Each structure stands twice: as structure tokens, then as C-alpha cells.
């Protein structure tokens, strides 16, 4: 069979992206609205990560299945600090009425019947006041010696109930945090520790310059753009956008630290065959938004990420620069076609995403250069019929020693023995430099006819 994978480079194509919040929130976009990549489509103040768990069964001293009967709020309710969440009505002899008030502002996500737990997702607010805890007074110490007894430093994140300071150093006589937040100040003049509640709203941003075509209630919107789409093969780092800037002169040249300076901050730079480790460090140091090159060295990525690439699912790395390879691993010159397209669009805004998943819902990194929103032409998506090879088909090699080199098929040869001694049909491919080389069908990628 001569079915092969195909290089995905498209000009004037329609690109649609669903842009969603991770939790329900407020959608501010409207259908028909023209947006830029940084436009906020929706916003939520619910905090990501794990919700907090309140053990009501233990609080009331009842079995988990009795907790439901005490609840005064339901799943989906928004609650404020101090709102009554649950009430246990006991007889006078059993202690009377017992009330549990919410220590959090947030959304009730779940009431656990089997464990008697209540899950609350905290909500932050921009007008949250700083909370001052008078630790010196509580521990009966001189404010000057506050730091001696502190368990925390400025900038530390603290959970509800975690120890802020104690007399004996292990927390026997301790002052605990009344909230989840960050230590903003330790004041040895007043003897107080200031705590700031986190405010980290999540946004669904447009990512593309385009038009809002659909609203998804409480979650986000669909943005449609027309422009150039270039698919990479592997990347690390998430969504970024910035001005597309050429930093190498040729497609077989590698980017190194000398190619990168402060002026590239926030830009998407592209180069040729790869990027040196020094270049990677310079990109991070200068806060470059993205780097697009032919090849990335696996060893350098492992050093950068501090872990093996493993099963090839990427995109969630906590790095400020997204790196994308258009050809593969190693030093591989960028395909002429890709390089020319990027050169053509240099100076325009590119939206990039390094997210890669190699199977079970394949996702490849992408570079999208949308047309300016005021010039959106009509265009339609092209069909994706699987390509078949024939004499004359344009292909590129995807294995050593010809990795990344393009050419066209001049002959399809019946099975013959290769250096590995395996006997298979081969293609004779005339490379752009005029050489005719032998390649297995599996080892080429179609570039159309």
C-alpha cells in the first residue's frame, strides 16, 4: 500500500477553536465580535486545583449518611463566608442546636453521602482585604521576637489551619492560618502576620485573531479565523502569541544565544535546523514567547524539563517559552516550504501551541498566522483524503541519513534487499540537490503532487 502521512501546511484555510473555561464562569464575548488573540471571552473566579473538603460527619459526630439531612445548601449553590451550611437539631440533653457556618466563599461542588464530606470550590475576589493575624498577642511574646517563632516566610502559601507560628517549635501552642492564602508581610513592629487571599481568576482568551461564531453558555466561545496553518511534529509549552520574527539567515542554520536579545521579548522567533542549549536558555531569559525550529534535541529538552519525554504528551509544562519542532528530533533543517511561509508572514502575529499527543486523539503543535480581522476572506476547509504515492509525488524523508530532505519520486521499485537484509519495495526519490536515493514507503511523508 502506498498510503502515507501528509505534511499539514495550509494557506488561506479556516481555523476554528473552542475556547473554554475550566470551571463555569461569566461569558463576556458576543457572536460576531471581532477579537484579537489576547481578548478575554470568559472569566471565572473559582480557584483551580482541588476543592476544599469539610468533614461535616466529624463536626456533628454523626454517621456519613445523616449529613444530608443537616444540609441547608445544595450542590451548585454559591456561598459566602459565614453562611449557614448545615444545622444539626439535637435535643437539649444532647447539646441542643449545632450550626456549621461556611469558612469559605465559593461554590458547593458535592455532598458526599458515603463519607459525610462537603466539597467547596473556593472563589477569589479582587476586593479581598488583607487579613492581619496578631501572632505576638496570641503567643504572648514581644513583637520584636516574632520571626524567632514563625513557621512561615513572606511569599509562602498557607492552607487553612496550617501553623503560622508556635512557642515550642513543633506547634503545641500555635497560631494557625484562618484561611488559604499567601503570607504577604511579617511585621516585627506590630507583631502581626498579614495574609492575602489568592486572587487568580481564570480566563478563556481568544488565542486567534478572528470572529466569535458561537457562545457556549457559562464556559466560553468558538473563535473562527482565516489564515495560514502550519503543523509541527513535536513541541513543549502551551499557548502563546507574538510577532513572528526571523532570527537565522538560512533554514539549515541553528539558533544560538547570539541570535536572541531583549528585543525578542514576547515574540515568536523562528530559525532553521534547531536551537542550541544556550539558545534555549537565552530564549527563556529574554521571555521569548515561542521558538519554531526544524529540530529540537531530545537531550536538551530533557535538561530543560528535568524529566524524560516518555509517552509523548506535552503542552502543560510550566515554561514561559513554547518550543516547536517542525521536522523532528536532532538538528534537522526546516523544510524549505515551511521556512518560506514563515518568512512570508514575518512581522505578523502568530498564535502557537506546543501541545503534542502522539496517539489516542492525536494532537500536533501548531503555528497559526491569522489574517487581520478586518480582511477576513471567505474560505472553506479542504477535505483530508489520505494521500497515495505515485511517480512524481513530492515527498520528504523522515529517517536518517536524509531526514528532512524533500524531493520527488522518480521510480517505485519492487521488493529488494536493504542493508538491514530486510526485503521490501523501495522508492527512488530525487532530492532537491539532484541525488537519487532509496527510501522505504514508510519512511517518507507526502507533500502532495
Amino acid at each position, binding site marked *: *500500500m502506498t498510503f502515507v502521512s501528509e505534511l499539514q501546511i495550509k494557506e488561506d484555510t479556516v481555523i476554528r477553536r473552542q475556547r473554554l473555561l475550566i470551571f463555569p464562569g461569566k461569558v463576556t464575548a458576543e457572536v460576531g465580535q471581532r477579537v484579537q488573540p489576547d481578548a478575554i471571552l470568559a472569566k471565572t473566579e473559582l480557584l483551580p486545583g482541588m476543592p476544599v473538603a469539610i468533614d461535616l460527619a466529624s463536626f456533628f459526630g454523626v454517621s456519613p449518611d445523616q449529613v444530608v439531612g443537616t444540609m441547608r445548601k445544595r450542590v451548585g449553590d454559591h456561598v459566602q463566608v459565614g453562611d449557614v451550611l448545615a444545622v444539626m437539631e439535637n435535643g437539649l440533653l444532647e447539646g441542643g442546636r449545632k450550626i456549621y457556618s461556611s469558612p469559605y466563599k465559593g461554590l458547593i461542588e458535592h455532598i*458526599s453521602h458515603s*463519607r459525610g464530606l462537603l466539597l467547596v470550590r473556593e472563589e477569589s475576589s479582587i476586593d479581598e482585604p488583607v487579613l492581619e493575624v496578631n501572632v505576638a498577642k496570641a503567643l504572648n511574646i514581644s513583637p520584636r521576637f516574632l520571626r524567632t517563632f514563625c513557621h512561615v516566610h513572606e511569599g509562602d502559601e498557607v492552607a487553612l489551619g496550617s501553623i503560622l507560628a508556635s512557642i515550642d517549635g513543633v506547634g503545641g501552642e500555635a497560631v494557625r492560618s484562618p484561611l488559604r492564602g499567601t503570607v504577604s508581610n511579617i511585621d516585627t513592629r506590630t507583631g502581626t502576620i498579614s495574609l492575602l487571599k489568592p486572587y487568580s481568576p481564570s480566563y478563556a482568551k481568544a488565542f486567534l485573531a478572528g470572529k466569535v461564531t458561537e457562545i457556549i453558555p457559562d464556559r466560553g466561545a468558538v473563535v473562527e479565523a482565516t489564515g495560514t496553518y502550519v503543523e509541527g511534529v513535536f513541541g513543549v509549552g502551551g499557548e502563546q502569541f507574538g510577532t513572528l520574527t526571523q532570527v537565522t539567515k538560512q533554514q539549515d542554520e541553528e539558533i544560538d544565544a547570539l541570535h536572541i536579545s531583549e528585543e525578542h521579548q514576547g515574540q515568536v522567533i523562528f530559525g532553521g535546523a534547531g536551537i542550541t542549549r544556550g539558545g534555549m536558555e537565552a530564549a527563556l531569559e529574554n521571555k521569548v514567547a515561542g521558538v519554531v525550529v526544524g529540530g529540537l534535541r531530545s537531550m536538551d529538552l*530533557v535538561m530543560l524539563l528535568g524529566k524524560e519525554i516518555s509517552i*509523548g504528551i506535552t503542552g502543560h509544562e510550566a515554561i514561559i517559552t513554547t518550543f516547536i519542532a517542525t521536522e523532528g528530533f536532532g538538528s534537522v533543517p526546516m523544510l524549505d516550504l515551511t521556512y518560506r511561509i514563515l518568512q512570508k508572514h514575518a512581522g505578523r502575529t502568530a498564535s502557537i501551541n506546543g501541545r503534542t499527543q502522539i*496517539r489516542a486523539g492525536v494532537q500536533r503543535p501548531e503555528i497559526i498566522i491569522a489574517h487581520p480581522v478586518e480582511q477576513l476572506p471567505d474560505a472553506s476547509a479542504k477535505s483530508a483524503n489520505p494521500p497515495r504515492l505515485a511517480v512524481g509525488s513530492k515527498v520528504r524523508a523522515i*529517517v*536518517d541519513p536524509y*531526514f528532512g530532505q524533500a524531493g520527488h519520486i522518480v521510480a517505485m521499485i519492487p521488493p529488494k534487499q536493504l542493508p538491514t537484509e530486510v526485503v521490501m519495495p523501495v522508492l527512488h526519490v530525487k532530492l532537491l540537490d539532484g541525488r537519487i536515493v532509496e527510501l522505504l514507503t*514508510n519512511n517518507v511523508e507526502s507533500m502532495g503532487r
Partner: protein
Amino acid sequence: MRYQSVLAVDVGSTTTKALLMDNSSGEFRLRYRAEAPTTVERPVENVMIGVQNAIEGLEQLSGRQFLQDSQLITPAKGDIGVDSFMATSSAGGGLQMVVGGIWQTMTADSAKKAALGAGAIVMDVFSADDDRNPLEKIQRIQELRPDMILLSGGVDGGNTTHVTSLAEVVALAKPQPRLGKSYTLPVVYAGNSKARGIVDSFLEEVSIVKHVANLRPTLETEVLDPAREQIHDLFMEHVMAHAPGYPELLEWCGNVILPTPGSVGRIIDMMGEKFDVNVVAADIGGATTDIFSSVYLSYRRFVPSEKGLWDRGYFEQVNERKFHRSVSANLGMSYSIGNILAESGISNISRWLPFEVDEGRLRDWCGNKMIRPTTLPQSLWSLLIEQAFAREALRLAFHRHMDLARGLRGISIKRSIGDILNQESSGQRLFSMLEVDAIVGSGGVLSHAPRRSQAMSMIIDSFQPQGITEIYVDSIFMMPQLGVLSTVDSEAALDVFLKDCLVPLGTCIAPVGSPRLGSTLATAEIMFSEGKKLFRIQTGELTLVPLSPGQRVEINLRPVSGVDVGEGPGKAMSAVAIGGQVGIVFDGRNRPINFPRNERERAAQLSSWYNTLNAYPETKEGTMQ
């Protein structure tokens, strides 16, 4: 049921293989084989394109028509079409499951065995006693997006609290479908029967719940088959029906697609039973590596007592055949090759290369194979690297299998003085490599190795057999199709298995002990038809004695003191060794195999071993780079 002709396909994660078998010559045999890249992933996302391409390949080879307007012609009409069409599949990630139980070493362990036994890939095992809190478990399930969940826990009539909270965790996670938005997650509940109603109340809104018999109705008993069968049924009804193109494939094959590991397991178990041998088999694919063992065991089993709390039971001697199957998700030769590197480490892979290794280049090769899974080695350098990765994938997968092939864990035993001296405990390994009679290798990297001696070398290096072990390879990677054929015609499947599938490579004779380097481990006297010949098995060396397929010779083995060839340390034994496409290999490298620390010496040692087996065209240092 006996068909005249059968077309069977195995849809692997990388390649779709089609076989035509018929009895046109009076016996059921393999006639033609063709393959095409699997098309379940982007850009095609329709498994049927790959299936049709593979069948078109069969049409070209056989000159017989099977398709008309892209539809299969079945049953056969004269010279066109086939009587039956069958399929197995591991594409799109196979059957990915999460299992849960109360205790990691008891019900969760049984749930893992049941899922693996059904041919599933176990992505994670949850239990009430693992380190994670419920919220972490919820997050993990949401990340994993399994195709199915198996829950167990609690003996029948016992406490229901823990198992219902596991059900609640699943309900809260509301796992998103991996395959299509209309997919509802199936949950198999095989726990305390008393908790069924509560489990339903938690899960009925987010999943399809199927109840089967408790996996551990009592602590001392384990009932896996009902859960396994239910998993198979749900795989067909729900998982496959939502994968791209699978509804049509299901229609073609009468609604039965076996998971590939389940299918290969059937044929291996049949082999073990039919010939009464202890057999271990491996199927190394693009995404997963599956290991199977069908072993006759003589062991002591715990029998519970009804006398009361202080006398829980006793051990009895049991002799029975046991079948185990393990699926190592993320150990494979294409999609999962990066994970072999992550789990094994660069030094364990490069130790199998007969040249000094540039780590950066090796890593880049691995990355490129992962992102372009269908590429094939074109140079000897690439072939050697690919086979080094295969050795490590098989080694890691086999280690995991041996961890799984254990007795019941977590049972409470009252010991007599004799039992204490015996130090026999629950959860011990059920067999050792000295008890294994045969190893069968399957999968592209083994079946399509350019020389059979390469397959022999990979199998010996990764499984490190001990004593006397026959080695076979699947001729053209056809065991999955024979497994599914065996469901309707076991005789035909076994005929094709023996005559067309199983290729004898030879016999590996590996004495084990700890003698000094350069010393003799054992002497072997082989009774050839032309006379006796004596061989010395030297420490650290391999010796190849050519013996053609079909030939058998008697061997008298005399190990030195402290060295075991199967009868116990220092004990002599006689055995029959079979010939094969490689011959008899005397392996004196001890277990585990030791390598010289110096990189140059290691490369030279590898070259020497490979040259002895005539495994590669040339292995002189530097010639392959």
C-alpha cells in the same frame, strides 16, 4: 464450526495485518498475508481505510476478489469472497481500564488480574489504602479518561462503606469520553453483593453499571471469570462501537472483535494445554507489550477452615495449570518507545549495542520513532538500536508479568511449626524460569527481524531463560488472528498455528550458578547421529551448535558443583533438545547477564556474542555508524 475460508485481520496500533486461511489443499493453512498502516488516528480517523487497504493487498497477492464497492463479499460465492471474517484490535489504545478495590494487595490486586486477564491495559489501580485522598483520585480519573472501570471490594455480606465510597469517587470524577461524545462509561461492579444498590445509586447517572459475581466472595477465594466475560462484552457493546470506523468493522465480523491480548492468550493457553508444556509468550507491539504464561504448577494452596477465628485453615498440595496474562501499557516499539527509555534508562538500552553510543543521537532516534511511529529501520545502525529497545521492553514487561503471576495475597494463615520453617507466604511467585519449557515471541520486531538469529538473541537476552528452554517465534506475526479463529474452530487454529505460525528457532541451554569468570559451568555431551560430541559451557560465553528444524538430539548435561541446569545444583541430567532455524545455544553468561564496565570492552563483548549467533551482517566496531 468449520469454514472453507477465513479472512482475519488484526488492527494493531501501528499496522493492520490481514490473513487469508483456507483448506483448498485439504488442510486448513495460511495462504496469504498483507498489511497496511492502521488509520484509527488523525488525519484519517477511520479504522476501515486501513482494513480495506490490507484486504486490497490480499487481493493483489491472491488474485482473488474480497471487496465489492468497499464492502466485504461474505460468504464466498465461487471464486470470490470469504466464508468468514474475523477481527482483533489493539488500536486506538486498546481497552484502557481503571480498577479499584479496598485493599491494594487483596481486592484491588484481584481486580487488576481480572482486567489484565480480559486483555485490558490497566492505567491505574485505586484502593482505600493507597496514599491518595479522594480528591486526588477524582483528578486522576479525570486525567486518565478510561474506557471502562472495574470496581471490587468487600467479601459478600461484609462492610459496604469503603466500596461505596470508591463508587462515589467514580461518580464525582464523571470521566469524559475518550471515544466520542455519546459514549457512556461502563462500570463493572464485582464487589460485595450487599452494596449493589448503593453503588447503583451513585453511578446510574454517569455510567452504565453491570453487576457480576464478587471477585473475592471470601478472603481465601478468587472468582475472576465472570468479571472477565463482562469486560469482553462491554468492550464490544460500548468501547469498540464508539471508536472511529469500528461500528462498520463490528458489522463485518458479526459483532465480535477480540482485544488482541485476549486473542493471543487463547492460542498460547491452547498450546500449553495441548502439549502439556510450560510456555511463556510475548507479543511486542507499537504501543504495548503483552506477556502470557501457561504453566503447570505444583504448589501449596491455602484452604480455609470453618472452625473459627483462631484456626483459619491449612495448606494443601495442588497440581494444576494456570494461565496468566499481563499487558504493559506504554511499553511498545513505536508510540510508546519514549517510555521504554524513561523506564529503562539510557544505559540499559545502550548496553545492548555493539558500539560506543552517542547518547544524544540515541535519544533523537527514539524521539523520531515516537513521533513518526510507522517508520522502519533502513540502516543496520537503526536496526540494532530498535532491537536494543525491544530487549528492554520485553525485559521490563516480563518482570511485571512475574510480579502478577503470584498466589493470592492478603490471606490470613495460621501456621504450624513446619509452615514457619518452610517460610511459605501468601503472594509468592508461582513459577521460576527453570520450570519454563518454551518461550514464544511475537510482534513485528521479532517476527519481521531480518535474521531469525536476531529474534533468538532478543528473546534470550530479555527473558534470560534458565536450564533447558525451547525458543519459538511467530513466523509472520499471526497469533492474534489464530486466537480469534480458535473461538469458532480450535482445530483449524491449532493446525495453522503449528504448521504456519510457530517457527522453532532452537534450544537455549543456560546453566545458572555463580562460578568465576572463565571457568566451566557445565559439560554437554550431544548424541548426534554421527556420534557423540562434547562441549564445555564457559562462564560469560555463548556457543552455537547448528541443528536443523525437525532434528532432535539427546544431551547429557553435567554441571559443576553449585550450578543448576534444571535438576538442582550440581546434579547431572539428560534431556532432548530440538533444532531450529538457529540451533542449540549454550548460554554461559549467568543470570542476570553481566556486562564489562569499560565501554570499549562492552562493545567488543557484544560484538563477540552477536557474531557467535551470526545475528548481524557485520558487527565490527564503528562499521554501523
